């Protein structure tokens, strides 16, 4: 890094954000490429201020100056929307800058306090998170944006901002204060774009988007449980049709696995009971058992078992299982037979066989019905 400072006079830390902003504003101009190179140098210097090197420690005062300067110049937002236009190394530097800035607490602040820049974005500039998600629109920005996002998502408020982003919501009550946890989503918000990024993008983009998607849906339990309950139909319609039925092996396999995890998470009990109540969900799942790829069958099994183990099976589910009872019994007997080492799987398979064999021959009205989720007012 030293070579940067040998040749040119070093810009004061105080001026770095302003300089970066100015360079970004000229990216579109006639000398855009040259400006991009200059911007890259500015970012490299910012990175150096923030993280130091293996030999030199970063100075907290300098970092503080830089972070507050970046907030003033709205640089986080500008970087988020221009990520894909930066040169290769500068994109990685921008990613590092984001990570450090959003984690930074002044040395005097309590270690439990929210980092200042993170708090600023959450309360005043939620668009930064939304634009980071939009980084998945381009291959170039996907990885750096995704890496930053997954760190940001450790904050429940940040996750809520992304989940509840909804451009069609009336008024300008954006951001954290505008979130109503029980408001139904239109499906136009940035969260819903993830379904397309996962399935339509190139492998790298899709894989990264899925990792973030998964983080969104598994980290903050009660937030997600509420969200899925409220948007049950919209969510599972997209989930089943775009992800579980995807043509892509990776999308399919990973989303079945994640589905199993979501359903079996205790926090999502209401979501699970509603999910396994539907006959059409069981159909999708039974078709997974017959997929020609073993790992798809296997992941499908772990969703299927939930339907069978449910002591309050709906009439629709019972009917499907009963019509296929003999087929299921002989099918399960030889299902994934080569998994001889997998004792838990074998136990569960035996359990399912027993359950199916012991089902009453006529569907029985379940004694308990799931909460009506999402579909109530449809």
């Amino acid at each position, binding site marked *: *890094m030293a070579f940067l400072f040998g040749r040119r006079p070093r810009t004061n830390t105080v001026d770095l954000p302003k300089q970066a902003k100015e360079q970004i504003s000229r990216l579109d101009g006639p000398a855009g490429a040259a400006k991009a190179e200059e911007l890259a140098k500015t970012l490299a210097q910012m990175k150096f201020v923030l993280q*130091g*090197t*293996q030999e030199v420690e970063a100075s907290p005062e300098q970092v503080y100056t830089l972070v507050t300067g970046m907030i003033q110049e709205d640089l986080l937002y500008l970087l988020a929307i221009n990520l894909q236009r930066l040169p290769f190394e500068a994109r*990685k530097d921008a990613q*590092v800058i984001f990570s450090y800035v959003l*984690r930074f*607490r002044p040395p005097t602040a309590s*270690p*439990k306090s929210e980092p200042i820049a993170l708090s600023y974005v959450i309360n005043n500039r939620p668009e930064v998170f939304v634009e980071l998600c939009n980084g998945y629109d381009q291959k170039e920005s996907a*990885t750096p944006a995704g890496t930053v996002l997954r*760190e940001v998502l450790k904050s429940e408020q940040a996750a809520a901002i992304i989940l509840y982003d909804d451009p069609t919501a009336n008024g300008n009550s954006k951001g954290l204060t505008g979130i109503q946890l029980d408001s139904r989503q239109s499906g136009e918000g940035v969260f819903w774009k993830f379904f397309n990024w996962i*399935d339509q993008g*190139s*492998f*790298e983009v899709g*894989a*990264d988007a899925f*990792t973030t998607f998964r983080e969104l849906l*598994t*980290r903050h339990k009660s937030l997600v449980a509420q969200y899925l309950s409220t948007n049950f139909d919209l969510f599972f319609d997209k989930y089943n049709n775009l992800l579980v039925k*995807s*043509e*892509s*092996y*990776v*999308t399919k396999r*990973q989303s079945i*696995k994640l589905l*199993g*995890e979501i359903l*079996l998470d205790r926090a999502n*009990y209401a979501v699970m009971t509603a999910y396994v109540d539907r*006959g059409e969900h069981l*159909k999708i799942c039974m078709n997974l058992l017959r997929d*020609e*790829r*073993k*790992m798809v069958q*296997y*992941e499908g099994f*772990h969703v299927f078992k939930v339907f069978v*183990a449910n*002591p309050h099976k709906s009439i629709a589910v019972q009917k*499907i299982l009963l*019509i*296929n009872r003999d087929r299921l019994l002989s*099918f399960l007997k030889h299902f994934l037979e080569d*998994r001889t080492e*997998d*004792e*838990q*799987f074998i*136990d*569960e398979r035996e*359990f399912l066989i027993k359950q199916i064999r012991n089902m*009453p*021959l*006529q569907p*029985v009205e379940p004694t308990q019905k799931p909460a009506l989720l999402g579909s109530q007012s449809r």
Partner: protein
Amino acid sequence: MSSEGAASQYQVLEELGSGSFGVVYKAIERSTGDVVAIKHIDLESSEDDIQEIQQEISVLSTCASPYVTQYKASFLRGHKLWIVMEYLGGGSCLDLLKAGSFNEAHIAIICRELLLGLEYLHQEGKIHRDIKAANVLLSNSGKVKLADFGVAAQLTNIKSQRNTFVGTPFWMAPEVIQQAGYDFKADIWSLGITAMEMINGEPPNAAVHPMKVLFLIPKAPAPRLEGNHYSKDFKDFVSQCLVKDCDRRPSAKELLRHRFIRSAGKVEGLRELIERKQEWDGGKMKPSHPRLYEETLNNMPKHEPDEWVFDTVKASTIAPRKNTTKRRKLSVIHANGQGITSGAEEAFKQLDLKDAPLEYSSPPPVTVKKSTIRKQPSIMQLATPTKSRQASSQKKPLQPDMNFGNSGCSTVRICRRVSDNSTTAQVNSDISVPGSTRDENRPPMGGTVTKEAILGRRVFNRIVDPSFQELHAQTSNQAKREALSRLADAWSALDAVDPEGEFQFIKTMMERVQADPKLSSHLTPVKGTSRDGTPQASPQKSPTKLVLAQNNPHLRSHRRRQTSMAPEPEFKEKLSNLPGQAVPGMEHTKQLADVLYGRWAGGLRNRWPAV
């Protein structure tokens, strides 16, 4: 995530070899005519979270350095993931070592280039974690590049540390093994071991069992190059890399200023190594045919006849059942009774309790467990935010986890590969038993060498140790593996101290087995039946077979080398490698060998029924 069309942009040619996750092919990019290497990873054969495989891609794709193999693209084709990378025609340093050890001048050049590569990686917050000759590739013009980022780590904070136990035992730094937290310096240690590997043809302790090496490295003093056939500078360089205290170990940047490195020549000088290897290959018989890429069609036997029936109104399917309904009605009522329903109910409730029978925890279990482990620390992170930055980037559990994702896999793979290695060493040292100098780790047998002692050692080298390795490789249960390796260690201690007693022990055991008619009938297989199908394998070498494809050219040349290396007087010993040969004085071990071979062949058949 799919881009089937992308595959047609490449004309896939012959196989180059098989790596950690799959087979690597040479290919031509149609649009540019460039030669590339494409790694095919069969995702269907991997239980691991696909995410772990993506890790490799994400590390590679964020590297842009002349010292790191260049990543070009990746895409899915069915359930295979194709990773396109630059083609490096010189092969790996491990390949090049087959034609003989390198000299110091060559090693200096390679080390300089590797240090430049490591300097880049470390500055980027990446740790390679598996530096060894096998992962260093050369281009045709002699350029040196780091490859195989299968277990590499990306840190978000350049000062944070890792605890995950990954790498290949012989090359692992003490702090990695001790899991006390390590950083970039771990790569420097491995570089030092790699330097020794290049001058000696194998890493230090190559003859020791890999599990034992894991105890040895933290305990023993750091390996050194000794003797005056090495230059002072080289010895000093190696000793600087191999400083056990990682805080005192120099960084890549500092080592670039070392005399040994500064005096290194140009990379073009490495062409000599490539040419030497080509000559060496030429001297050997050409591998009969290059393995060509063949499209594997997925002909899964489909049992179509009984598709699910979702159509409730299909009368025909319901009708016949009606007849039986009446008869079954009684049992239905029973089945509906308290016992079973509540049983099911119970089980269902337990679904979300942690210890329920249906709990979603094992085989995908492994991964789910992982995610629970992963989340627990995150709760703590909220409470102690100072720690959270360190853990923040880590998708892996902080706990020592021998099994995490692909690295677990690679550790196993590595152990197997290693067992291949150590078998080689054993075979070598075995061939030259009298006055062997290679085998430093065994105390040399003193003046009172009895025949029993030689035989005892032989039993260990040929029978006991390979069997342990084989069993170990076949055992998946962690606890069982540990118990097994403890036993293996104990046995090897016996072998070191008292080979004579070892021989007596085996002998007594064999006699007792034979004395018991029931046991002897079970332990003595019918001759011939157990060894059909794989005639080229001998029981002693079984671990080797598990690692490399049968027709792997390296393996073949390796085997040839072994046989050609056997000097004339040891002719009988050479023959004894082949099945069915009676070894004088060893008749009694033959049955044991047969049993072991039979078991191994059985295991093999289970794994690859088609072979």
